[in-house]
């Protein structure tokens, strides 16, 4: 196993990517209950809006944000000659992701705690 920042970014990209695919199909199934009418929709969604799921949503948010920023990083590498700055680029997007997860996580946390 060859460890490097590149490997960490790759691993995180893959793990968040696979997690998001699994989430996507669950998400489609949950929202898909709208096909069977408003009542089914409301009852199924109620189940997924318990406090535990709201905490899980923070993890979801983190996955989305990291995967997105990593994508931006890759696009930058594809279209500009910046391989020299590969490490700083990774640290920068990682820091940006953390900040954004905190900023986005606080409202979710507050909402989860108040009800």
């Amino acid at each position, binding site marked *: *196993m*060859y460890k*490097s920042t*590149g490997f960490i970014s790759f691993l995180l990209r893959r793990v968040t990517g696979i997690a998001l695919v699994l989430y996507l199909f669950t998400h489609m199934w949950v929202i898909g209950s709208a096909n069977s009418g408003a009542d089914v929709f409301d009852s199924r969604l109620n189940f997924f809006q318990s406090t535990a799921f709201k905490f899980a949503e923070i993890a979801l948010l983190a996955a989305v944000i990291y995967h997105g920023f990593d994508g931006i990083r890759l696009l930058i590498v*594809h279209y500009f000659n910046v*391989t020299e700055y*590969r490490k700083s680029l990774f640290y920068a997007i990682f820091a940006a992701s953390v900040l954004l997860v905190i900023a986005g996580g606080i409202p979710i946390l507050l909402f989860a705690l108040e009800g």
Partner: protein
Amino acid sequence: MVTATIRIQRFNPDVDKKPHIGEFHLEPDQDTTILDALQMSKSQQDGSVTFRRSCRHAICGSCAMNVNGSNMLVCNKPLAAVLDKNRRVTIRPLPYLPIIKDLVVDRSSFWEQYQRVKPWLIPPGDLPEKEFRVSPEEVEALNNAETCIMCGACYSACQVIGMTKQYIGPHALLKAFLRVVDPRDTEPGERLANLSGSDGVYRCHTIFNCIDACPKDLNPTQAIETLRKLAQKRRALDDARNERQKYIEEPVSTG
């Protein structure tokens, strides 16, 4: 100087089931290289320690190994630079490749993939009487790729190689890049067509390990990015190359 501990990953296929670590205690000088340390272990303590080396000055590419988790040439690296604070260093064979014995790995997939990209130059049919003339800018664009010594450090640092040996690999893609951008080569379009299959440039996941590992400071990742871009305009590249080769024998104006 104080004692240094050299931890070498040992594996003898005749007796061992799994690789294990062997420790050697040496008294290195200030200018002992890692390779010297290996050689000292072999000659003074255990003659069965097996590793590859030839030139001892970083040009043959036989001595690439994994030292403290990073791939490097051991012949041009001072031992002092890799010792940790307990004065220890761990030397393993190149990762992701089958081990033959101790630090010697089987590099056949490396060479097979290399053959696959036709690493040689395909010159125009009628060779110039005297020489090809190439401008300094065109040489600049090669990004020193011609100085690759085929040591395999990048190849075995690549996580994609860890998953599939079908991938062409950074070493061969760098060589392909060298040929594709070389103004003397006649078949850049066809080369690119062969590189854009599912085992080629699009299998690279931009992990950057190849740059980190390269002992010659080359940039396989940027080469792959360039090939990706060129692969999307093969026709235009072929035409431009044909145009260029019409005056390949004439002196280039230097502005």
